[in-house]
């Protein structure tokens, strides 16, 4: 019964979103307030209905209701509760339901908190948001219904893919989707602005918090996925330039560019058409990501079993949504651009450079990801595009990007001179040289890209912190004065400092672990020792252990350095009888300077020998720490008064009533 209620709620949500897509749009056109207000009511009602639908499916998973096909196919009664809950979105149908849930929640958030957004813009943005929803509701109801019944009910379920039974991956899809779908808000605002024919500083300020929230979630989502791949797949790496990984990186790059270009719109009333373009592109790439993952057109490490009809449906949605938006941009865009002329050496010049590089990166990743498809469609050879391509493009482009990040924030708006700014951070250059020298000395190996990466990372962190220190007059004023200034700094400034410094820390981790990873693969008998990265890994043998829904072989490694015991690592190879699959559970000991990483493979021979893979991965923890700092930056920036959705505006182009400033 509950399942039927969920199904019914989803159909009602579709009907509600049709109302939300039409009535407010017509109301905004004819200036009828009551019609425009329908948008907010419908958005809230729609969100409520999808919550009911999602809750019904989750209930079926939690109670292991195997009369539901989706539960029977993807769950099992013996599964731990966390994975029963996560199982709701650990399958195609459920994950699409999560997608529309998040879409509806974003719409409801605009309806509930967007009281300062001009009514016509709000009505139109909600209507656009609703039409995206209509497309996805139809997709779910016609091709991927999670509420389908199974008669007769199954005795027990097929279980969830054991690779996905992991806390990191349980929360990876929700965050990724919060990011992907979050860009729908920027998209809806962009299309609404095109329909209105007006983009101004106020628009940029309304659109920025949504973009920032989406960016922050997407950053968390990508990092969780990468972290999961690092410890669960047991290959010792964290990024493989796999199509599915690229699919999440492309919207991140475009979204990062959008965040920065929106600042230029807000401060200088320039780059309007470009910002609208980026808002459309960021969401288009999110949709493309969904298509690539859900259609299985590319061979991926993380591919899913797929039904071609679904891929075609998502592709059609992508073409309609994005094609329509671009057509609208081509038609209305030329009317937007006015003014918007500035000097190359200035804050906005730096931001423009950042935008050009980020979009070039996104374009290159797109080219590399789709190239095999294009070539095959053109009747050419079957190829795959590997990491050498992406590294050859992204690494050289990252150099000017990081340089611009270090120097740009020091430049004033409008017109600036490069030399005084450089003069203020000359010691960032010293830090860069010191970091490169330290890396060379510690690794004993002059990998040029890694040394360059360390140098840029150090320069970026030092220049970013120096910019903050300069703003709060650290050392030139009394400590109390500096502290007072720090407290008085706008949150978005602190957010920027953290986000930039965080990226610097992460780049140090990426460079070092990419270049100086040490790997040893061998057969070890109990008592055998192998030296990796200066650490001695002694294999003490393996034993059989039992988990809640799996059996495992657990190896024991005693790791020591210079005769002193450091840690005992216990990697496992688990077998899940229900799903008939095995997973590798790497054992990882994280230290400040690097991760000790051990994987146990197949048994060899009779004397308890096993194939083992041992790694020393330098500075990996820096990468995760850097991402956390970036996320903290995004979150703090989001709490800025200026971007608070309900905050009043200093300079609103249409006279907006000064509603309660939160």
């Amino acid at each position, binding site marked *: 019964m509950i399942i039927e209620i969920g199904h019914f709620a989803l159909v009602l949500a579709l009907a509600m979103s049709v109302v939300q897509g039409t009535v407010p749009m017509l109301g905004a056109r004819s200036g009828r307030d009551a019609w425009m207000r329908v948008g907010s009511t419908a958005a809230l009602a729609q969100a409520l209905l999808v919550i009911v639908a999602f809750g019904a499916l989750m209930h079926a998973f939690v109670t292991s209701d195997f009369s539901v096909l989706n539960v029977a196919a993807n769950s099992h009664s013996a599964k731990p509760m966390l994975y029963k809950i996560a199982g709701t979105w650990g399958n195609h*149908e459920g994950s699409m339901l999560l997608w529309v849930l998040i879409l509806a929640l974003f719409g409801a958030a605009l309806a509930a908190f967007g009281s300062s957004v001009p009514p016509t813009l709000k009505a139109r943005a909600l209507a656009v948001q609703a039409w995206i929803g209509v497309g996805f509701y139809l997709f779910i109801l016609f091709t991927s219904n999670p509420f389908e019944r199974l008669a007769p009910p199954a005795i027990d379920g097929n279980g969830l893919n054991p690779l996905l039974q992991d806390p990191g991956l349980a929360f990876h899809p929700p965050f990724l989707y919060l990011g992907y779908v979050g860009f729908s808000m920027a998209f809806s605002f962009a299309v609404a602005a095109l329909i209105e024919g007006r983009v101004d500083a106020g628009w940029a300020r309304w659109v920025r918090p949504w973009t920032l929230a989406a960016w922050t979630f997407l950053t968390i989502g990508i990092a969780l996925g990468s972290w999961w791949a690092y410890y669960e797949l047991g290959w010792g790496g964290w990024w493989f330039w796999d199509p599915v990984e690229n699919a999440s990186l492309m919207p991140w790059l475009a979204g990062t560019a959008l965040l920065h270009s929106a600042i230029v719109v807000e401060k200088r009333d320039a780059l309007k058409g470009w910002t609208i373009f980026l808002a459309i592109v960021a969401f288009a790439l999110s949709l493309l990501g969904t298509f690539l993952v859900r259609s299985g057109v590319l061979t991926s490490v993380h591919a899913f079993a797929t039904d071609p009809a679904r891929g075609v449906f998502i592709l059609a949605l992508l073409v309609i949504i994005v094609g329509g938006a671009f057509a609208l941009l081509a038609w209305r865009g030329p009317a937007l651009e006015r003014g918007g002329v500035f000097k190359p050496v200035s804050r906005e010049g730096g931001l423009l450079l950042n935008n050009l590089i980020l979009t070039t990166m996104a374009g290159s990743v797109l080219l590399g990801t789709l190239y095999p498809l294009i070539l095959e469609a053109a009747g050419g050879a079957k190829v795959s595009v590997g990491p050498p391509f992406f590294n050859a493009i992204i690494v050289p482009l990252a150099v000017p990007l990081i340089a611009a990040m270090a120097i740009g924030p020091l430049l004033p708006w409008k017109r600036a001179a490069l030399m005084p700014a450089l003069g203020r951070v000359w010691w960032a250059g010293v830090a860069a040289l010191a970091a490169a020298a330290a890396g060379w000395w510690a690794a004993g190996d002059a990998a040029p890209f890694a040394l360059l990466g360390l140098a840029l990372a150090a320069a970026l962190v030092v220049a970013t912190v120096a910019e903050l220190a300069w703003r709060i007059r650290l050392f030139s004023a009394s400590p109390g004065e500096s502290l007072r200034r720090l407290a008085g700094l706008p949150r978005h400034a602190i957010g920027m400092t953290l986000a930039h410094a965080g990226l610097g820390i992460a780049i140090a981790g990426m460079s070092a672990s990419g270049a100086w990873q040490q790997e040893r693969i061998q057969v070890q008998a109990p008592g055998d020792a192998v030296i990796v990265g200066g650490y001695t890994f002694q294999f003490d043998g393996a034993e059989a252990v039992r988990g809640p829904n799996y059996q495992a072989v657990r190896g024991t490694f005693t790791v020591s350095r210079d005769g002193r015991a450091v840690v005992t690592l216990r990697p496992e190879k688990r077998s899940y009888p229900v799903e008939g699959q095995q997973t590798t559970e790497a054992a990882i000991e994280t230290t400040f300077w690097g991760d000790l990483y051990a994987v146990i493979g197949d048994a060899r021979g009779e004397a308890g020998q096993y194939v083992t893979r041992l790694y020393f991965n330098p500075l990996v923890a820096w990468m995760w720490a850097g991402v956390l700092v970036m996320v903290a930056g995004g979150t703090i920036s989001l709490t800025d008064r200026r971007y608070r959705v309900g905050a009043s505006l200093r300079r609103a182009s249409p006279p907006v009533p000064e509603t309660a400033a939160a």
Partner: protein
Amino acid sequence: MKPKHRRLTFVVIGAGLLAAAAALILSASRDALVFFKTPSEIIAEPADDSRRLRIGGLVEEGSVERSDDAHVRFRVTDTVNAVAVTYIGVLPDLFREGQGVVAEGQMRDGVFVADQVLAKHDENYMPPEVADAVKASGQWRDATQKTTQETTGGVGVAR
């Protein structure tokens, strides 16, 4: 500088960046593009040994041998021809005989030395190249292609 000229400056910088990117793409393409071959294609036209390749097909039944020095040897077949593959290390969790596999590496003296092995992880998932390789050999039967019953899963890679 007139406004028009300033805008032109940005256009020139942008175009320069794109041109640089394109040049990088071209210079990278030789190493970056990995061609996919079926066992029959490899036997029909032996490839240049220095070239990185991906081969795909099914792991031949009874061909997997594990040696004591962490090497694994197996044969990849498209049901007509087969190629011997050798690989060092831990295979993907769901590497099995009779299942689809994609290996990446180089040919050396008639043996494919793989440094990366992708095997399907999901009973219902077959890498598109493998399905095409088996189809191309003319041996495609419905028995090979399992009905699409929806479960999620990944392809595991070992490298």
